[in-house]
């Protein structure tokens, strides 16, 4: 479904992605793990279409080239990115934002727009999924939300948008165990044969809750190893040191040193 071939991304002279290859089939969940600065977030933004990168290579979704598309066109094509740092938008009502987003992609796809009342039903169902109360919808988008609330709001948006491919960037960062459980529950409920996911994470902890079909290790802009979920367990025990050049050892900290052990 998603085909990524020799993807490169640079900001100015700084090359971040150096030829990334990945294929994600329908219904599959792929985890991408890697040390800080390896290019994980850049990969997510390259898929979502953020400005400011020099991009090379090929990315197609269901055979359609994504790279020339605007972020909004990619959303209409079925890409959803869960942000590591969801943006606060004071003054824009969350409900209005969600309905505008959904209707924007529906319009782009030639579908009819959804009215306020029907939308409320859609939103209610999505809210239950992430255990959010009605007042979340009445507040401004992410404004004054706690870290956990922001991440739940991302999953709520995903539930409303029903994407073909969800790219979840460090969705677990900054979450306590209860919030993590809620978010993973939401993500798992949204898994399905027609929906693929790329779960980007630094820690293996999230993968205790969201079981990936494949795990990839991203180091220095390339996927250096792929495997099943046992690869994540190996990383937990050994860190990324095996994959990082000796002369880079001073760059990434030993990332798993403080991580909780797996139950």
């Amino acid at each position, binding site marked *: 479904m998603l085909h990524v071939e020799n993807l490169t991304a640079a900001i100015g002279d700084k090359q971040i992605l150096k030829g990334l290859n990945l294929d994600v089939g329908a219904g599959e969940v792929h985890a991408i793990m890697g040390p800080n600065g390896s290019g994980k977030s850049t990969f997510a933004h390259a898929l979502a279409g953020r400005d400011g990168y020099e991009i090379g290579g090929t990315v197609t979704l269901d055979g359609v080239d994504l790279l020339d598309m605007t972020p*909004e066109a990619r959303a209409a094509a079925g890409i959803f990115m869960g942000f590591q740092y969801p943006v606060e938008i004071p003054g824009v009502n969350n409900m209005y934002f969600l309905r505008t987003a959904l209707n924007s992609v529906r319009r782009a796809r030639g579908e009819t727009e959804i009215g306020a009342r029907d939308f409320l039903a859609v939103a209610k169902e999505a809210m239950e999924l992430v255990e959010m109360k009605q007042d979340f919808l009445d507040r401004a988008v992410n404004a004054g939300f706690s870290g956990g609330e922001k991440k739940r709001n991302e999953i709520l948006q995903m539930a409303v948008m029903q994407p073909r491919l969800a790219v979840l960037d460090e969705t677990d960062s900054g979450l306590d165990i209860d919030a993590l459980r809620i978010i993973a529950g939401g993500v798992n409920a949204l898994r399905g044969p027609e929906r693929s996911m790329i779960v980007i994470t630094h820690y293996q902890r999230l993968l205790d809750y969201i079981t990936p079909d494949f795990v990839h290790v991203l180091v220095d802009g390339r996927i250096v190893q792929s495997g099943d979920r046992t690869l994540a367990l190996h990383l937990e025990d050994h860190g990324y040191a095996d994959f990082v050049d000796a002369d880079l050892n001073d760059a990434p900290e030993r990332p798993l040193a403080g991580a909780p052990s797996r139950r």
Partner: protein
Amino acid sequence: MSAAATTSPIRAVELIDGIVRPTKRDEAWRYAPHRELGELTFGPTGSVVVDLPADLVAQIPALDGPRIVIINGAVDRARSDLATPDGVYLRSLADATESQPDLVNHQGDRAGVVDAFTAYNLAYATDGAVIVVDVGVDVAAPIHVVDITAPGSVTNSSSSRVIIDVGAGSSVTVIESRLGVGTEFGGSNVRTTVALGDDATLEHVVLQDLPAQQVHLSRVEVAQGERSTLRTRSFNLGASYGRLAYHVELAGAGAHAELSGLFFGDGEQILDQQITVVHRAKDCTSRQLFRGVLDDASTGVFNGGIDVCPGADGTDAEQSNDNLLLSNRAEVNTQPRLEILADEVACKHGATVGQLDDTALYYLRSRGINAEEARRLLINGFADEVVDDVSIEAVRNWITRRLGHDHD
């Protein structure tokens, strides 16, 4: 604060003699278009325009409640609805001056003449609206003052007065819509004087949306009694030069004034807010919260003053002005003026100037919202923080429609 005699053309001549129009060297008029101001002509109240174009009629906010319509400085009785609940007096200034001069307390008539244009107003504004609320009355429906200028052949500018007197313990909302007809050069010059009795509450909204060829000059003066509450909300949207000046005197202990406003400009508009809040009594609080959105080659001005007089201990005053520049040709000039001559005073002020947040735009676009719509959402979100301060839903809806967004 004496009940000065009313105006007449004879006194006008007396006043107008020797009036010097402001120049760029006057701080309060620094960003004004002086050539255009020099071309405004004022004179005795002109005739009522009988036919108002349909688009102007459609532009008038539709509010339930009493309404007084002033066209070229004269009250148009046919278009007004002066019926009011008990305890509320709503008349044209001309009638009130004639029949019940004691009701018309021209507070600070002379004191309020601070420049050429307030002098012109005192000279020529022989009509307008008088709103008096008795002691202890809660007025439910807002009182709507509609001021329309239609530049004519004799003079191109209109002058009018609004006098609001709120009795002790009473509360009322007054909406002033300032509009104009046609595409001719001209303007309006409105002066509002407000007296708030002890424990009285007033919400006062100015909606300035004159045509792009016209100039609007407004000065609102307020004297507040003990523990009274003032909430002004100003929307400076139209005109080539829109000037909204406020002078608030916190004269009674424990009074509270909240002034918020939005100026939203494009083209080559200059939108000028001149604010002064004077803390004369002890333990008063004041808040100034103004937001500017400036596109194209428009200019915004926020000149916000807080004067704390000797003895006004326990003053708590805050001021903020946040601005969004949508074009690299737009500019904003923001200046706080703080003069503090008392002890135990808490004064805060802050100003920001920024552009649309690229990350926020990207976030919205990643949700399928196109770039233009995302931009509009962010701009309106910024503006809505002020719009939300307006308590009357119909007024909020008028503003959001005017700003090109409708939430439903």
